[in-house]
């Protein structure tokens, strides 16, 4: 018990980080869940999934998917060529991952303008990565073959998670760009 107290006393900044990190994560997740309940009660699709699927549709068209169609329903959107579509659900929109990213930034930097700015930019960057991911998956599905399954199972999952960790590792450098002292 004493050893734990000593450890806690010597690692107080880390414990504060964990506290801020978890409170921000659960707080933002709770707000997002409330929003999802609100949209469900109104019989709407959430706007994040809507915009992600719309962006993915544009990305797929940019990547050369001919006759790419896009249709949204209450439970999600269908994007792609008829017969080769992908289903973009709420769990595919990447916002929960972006919330984890934002929680880390707030956890490390605290509630200040630099952290809020980085969190906002990070949310947009993670969503752009996700649009590239889904757009490429639509293009791969249109292209055919087994590549699609390989990419969806391994490559793109790793791609988006690693991109978040790389953004975290860049945080001290971004802080310096924004004029932080250390």
């Amino acid at each position, binding site marked *: 018990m004493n050893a734990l107290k000593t450890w806690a006393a010597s690692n107080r900044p880390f414990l504060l980080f964990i506290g801020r990190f978890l409170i921000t994560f659960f707080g933002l997740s709770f707000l997002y869940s409330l929003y999802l309940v609100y949209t469900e009660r109104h019989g709407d699709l959430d706007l994040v999934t809507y915009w992600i699927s719309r962006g993915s549709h544009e990305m797929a068209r940019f990547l050369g998917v001919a006759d790419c169609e896009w249709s949204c329903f209450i439970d999600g959107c269908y994007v792609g060529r008829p017969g080769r579509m992908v289903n973009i659900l709420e769990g595919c929109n990447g916002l929960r991952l972006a919330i984890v990213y934002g929680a880390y930034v707030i956890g490390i930097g605290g509630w200040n303008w630099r952290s809020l700015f980085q969190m906002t930019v990070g949310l947009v960057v993670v969503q752009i990565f996700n649009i590239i991911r889904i757009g490429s998956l639509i293009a791969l599905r249109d292209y055919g073959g087994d590549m699609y399954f390989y990419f*969806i199972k391994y490559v793109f999952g790793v791609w988006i998670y690693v991109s978040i960790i790389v953004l975290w590792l860049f945080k001290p450098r971004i802080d310096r760009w924004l004029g932080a002292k250390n």
Partner: protein
Amino acid sequence: MFSALLTLALSATSQSMEGTFDETFQGMFEMPEQPIYIPEGVQGPLNPAVPLDGGLTALLLAGGAAGYRQYKKKKA
């Protein structure tokens, strides 16, 4: 005599035919006892989902580890 033999032979043939039919169609409309095999995973869904939230816990743990690393660096 010939007609009696023919009648006997025909009745024997019809009995054996009935036996064969019975064997073939016996239990035709009964459900088999073992569960019916339904192939799964051979062909994926028509419009597959592209989920991302599977590794959320792993990412939270990675965040904790990255934060610990950052504080260790600051401390050193």
